[in-house]
């Protein structure tokens, strides 16, 4: 009986200590990787030459913009998980990402990018939801088109911007209320049809194309955004 009690107590403490270690490993990330380690991990299909910066977006998320030997501008996103820094996304030439630090709190979302500085003077982010109409007998449904934009001056190559302002307010209003669906299986997640895109402009306001081999890998809590075709916009200001 006594032995059993000691065993139970031992197991109890082992579980407590185990979960405490797990908690601390997850909640208190160790020092982030140094440049050398980063270059090594990022150089698989291209030779990364310069690590431009290491920006902690959150204590568990780091944004690392880099430049390759061939002057390709790219960035990587790292996340602390299970006691290690994991590369969750890498994108080169012509991407922006939306990082969802806390999926349920849009105010925690961050836009990140890294573009060459020469010839690009403005960056624009767009939030779009397409127009939609359904009519069934007496009932009608009309979804107005949402098209909002926000621009940033492009001084330094890379940047991090919070999802904020009116775009955020509209987004929160949209997800706070259930959306119409013909059949729930046809439109499983109403918020999914809001999408984010970007574009870059030179000092004359002309769209700039990078004309370089663009690619991105990874995903999950970090969503890649595409360059928006001008012709997909209604009435650019």
């Amino acid at each position: 009986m006594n032995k059993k009690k000691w065993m139970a107590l031992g197991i109890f403490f082992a579980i407590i200590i185990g979960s405490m270690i797990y908690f601390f490993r997850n909640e208190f990330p160790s020092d982030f990787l140094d440049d050398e380690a980063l270059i090594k991990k990022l150089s698989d299909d291209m030779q990364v030459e310069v690590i431009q910066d290491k920006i902690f977006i959150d204590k568990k998320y780091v944004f690392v913009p880099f430049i390759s030997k061939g002057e390709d501008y790219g960035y990587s996103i790292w996340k602390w998980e299970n006691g290690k820094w994991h590369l969750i996304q890498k994108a080169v030439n012509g991407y922006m990402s939306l990082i969802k630090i806390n999926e349920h709190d849009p105010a925690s979302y961050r836009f990140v990018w890294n573009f060459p500085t020469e010839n690009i003077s403005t960056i624009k982010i767009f939030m779009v939801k397409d127009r939609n109409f359904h009519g069934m007998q007496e009932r009608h449904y009309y979804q107005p088109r949402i098209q909002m934009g926000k621009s940033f001056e492009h001084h330094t190559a890379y940047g991090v911007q919070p999802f904020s302002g009116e775009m955020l307010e509209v987004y929160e209003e949209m997800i706070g209320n259930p959306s119409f669906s013909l059949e729930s299986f046809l439109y499983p997640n109403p918020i999914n049809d809001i999408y984010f895109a970007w574009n870059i402009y030179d000092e004359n306001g002309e769209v700039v194309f990078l004309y370089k081999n663009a690619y991105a890998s990874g995903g999950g809590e970090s969503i890649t955004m595409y360059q928006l075709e001008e012709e997909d916009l209604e009435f650019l200001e």
Partner: protein
Amino acid sequence: MNMIDVLFTLLTWGIIGFLAYRIYQKQEERPRIWKIMIVIIVGIFSFSLTFPFFYATIRIALLPLGVWILYAFLKNKNWNQYRKYAWLGFLANYIFLSSALLSLFIYHLVYDEASINHHISDITEAKVIPIHPTGKKSVTLRDDFINQISSMERQVFSLEEMLWGGDYQKQDERFPYLLVGSKPRWGSGLSAVIYIEQDGKGIIINTDKESLYFRSDQSLLKEGESHE
């Protein structure tokens, strides 16, 4: 939150509790209370059919699976002590059903899903945001907005002229403003996305079922005095 639903759910559990208490009082050999609770909850478990009913679903319990399971476990023990509680659990299905129907009925006496005032009842924290380049940035809600919408009339929503006029995704947006932060009538649990028309005189309320369209003679918006 839909207060009528909450109230009726509480009422239903109250009735079940009361009936259980009546059985308990009449018993000479009384089981433990936590055992009674488990027996009632297992008793609810049943094979049932669901039907759509005015945008709600109703469940009609047919086979008392929970009662059978309990019987299988307790027939050689003290089934007689628990029998009534198990059947009370099964009966609870019908109490829930009638409560749901009654609550639906009463909900529609108290709240009107087609009323603009029930969807927009409190605008103390509300504001209007342009969501499309067609909308003006400097627009705000008029001070008598709430009074104005009371006199708005529901209209048939026709989009024919918009749909057949050229490129569907390439035009002025007819509803370029979003009303953010307005609250529906207290306790109604109503939830919708509300857009305002370009001329400021129309509102569409997008519920999860349809768009309700209302028109007014005057604009609900004023220009200038933007607080930025």
